[in-house]
């Protein structure tokens, strides 16, 4: 019985020509599949926890007067304050309606972080009318350190060495989730 002739052909000079058509078919199919299943959206996330009510009041913690840094966002301004008066109250006016002064907020938070390097939490109390875009921009400026920010260090109590601080106040908690008020209120 005769064997099947080879699909490889020779041209006039005797050079072998590979049959690239099936490989080409496979590649086109693969590219089509990858393009179809690929995600072109580069999504990022900002994580936050629902505030948990403590069953027993920790008297020691209250006596210690925690910072509990709070940012109240109203329609035209933001107010940075601490319920125990650990930081000076600061009012930051919006640059224009719906546009908070995130640079001023970031600078104010940097100063507070320098004074309280162990603190990581910021309580957010926005007014009902604040939109999602404003919330994201405020959370961005409150959570992240920028490349232009001066370096800050804190001493690790376990090792005794200085470590660079990588974030500002990364833990965001919404302080007015349980209230039904329209104004931004405190925690």
């Amino acid at each position: 019985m005769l064997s099947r002739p080879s699909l490889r052909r020779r041209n006039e000079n005797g050079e072998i020509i590979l049959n690239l058509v099936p490989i080409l078919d496979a590649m086109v199919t693969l590219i089509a599949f990858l393009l179809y299943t690929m995600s072109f959206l580069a999504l990022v996330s900002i994580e936050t926890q629902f505030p948990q009510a403590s069953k027993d009041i920790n008297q020691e913690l209250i006596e210690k007067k925690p910072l509990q840094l709070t940012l109240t966002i109203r329609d035209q301004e933001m107010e940075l304050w601490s319920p125990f008066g650990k930081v000076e109250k600061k009012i930051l006016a919006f640059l224009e309606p719906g546009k908070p002064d995130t640079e001023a907020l970031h600078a104010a938070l940097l100063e507070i972080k320098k004074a309280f390097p162990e603190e990581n939490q910021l309580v957010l109390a926005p007014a009902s009318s604040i939109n999602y875009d404003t919330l994201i921009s405020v959370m961005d400026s409150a959570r992240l350190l920028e490349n232009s920010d001066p370096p800050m260090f804190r001493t690790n109590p376990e090792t005794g060495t200085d470590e660079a601080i990588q974030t500002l106040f990364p833990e965001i908690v919404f302080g007015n989730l349980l209230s039904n008020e329209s104004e931004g209120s405190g925690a």
Partner: protein
Amino acid sequence: MSIRRSIRLRKGRRRKQSESELPLTSMMDILVIILVFLLKSYTTSTNSLTTIAGIQIPVSASPDIPGDTLQVIVTPEGVTFENERIMDFVLAAAEAGTTEAHYRFKEADLDEEGLRVVPLFDALTKAREKAELLRAKSQARDENGQPLPFEGTLAIQADKRVRYETIRKIMYTAAAAGYKTFRFLALSREG
């Protein structure tokens, strides 16, 4: 040369010309480059989070990549949970002192003094029960031999115009349904 021979020769020349092949090597090179590029980009897109047409997502500098979680999408017109539209808002009259009208929850959709959104609560509860059932049937167990606990994480993807009033109600409802961790989604500033 006879006429017949001349025709035969011409036919043979034509056949030889029609057998000439396209140079596929350069095309192969291009396709290989595209394939390598796509495969490299493909590895970064690990989650199944989707979006819907017309939504304007804000931009964030956060470096955190969201993992696979249940997702609720809030547009100014309604709420979508896991690619299924579960409720529509109603257009409210412009408030005193403002010119812009905006969408609100229907009164019939709210309970617990207007804080809990009933259709969303039902959908979230159903999804949690389904996840817990799957975990109970799964072979994966914790240190005590119990099924792995429900993570209770919900991704919230909202249009940049959606008000905090709406987001607060959604977070409250989700917490009531057992979801205690929220991931606010935004577009990457770098991407």
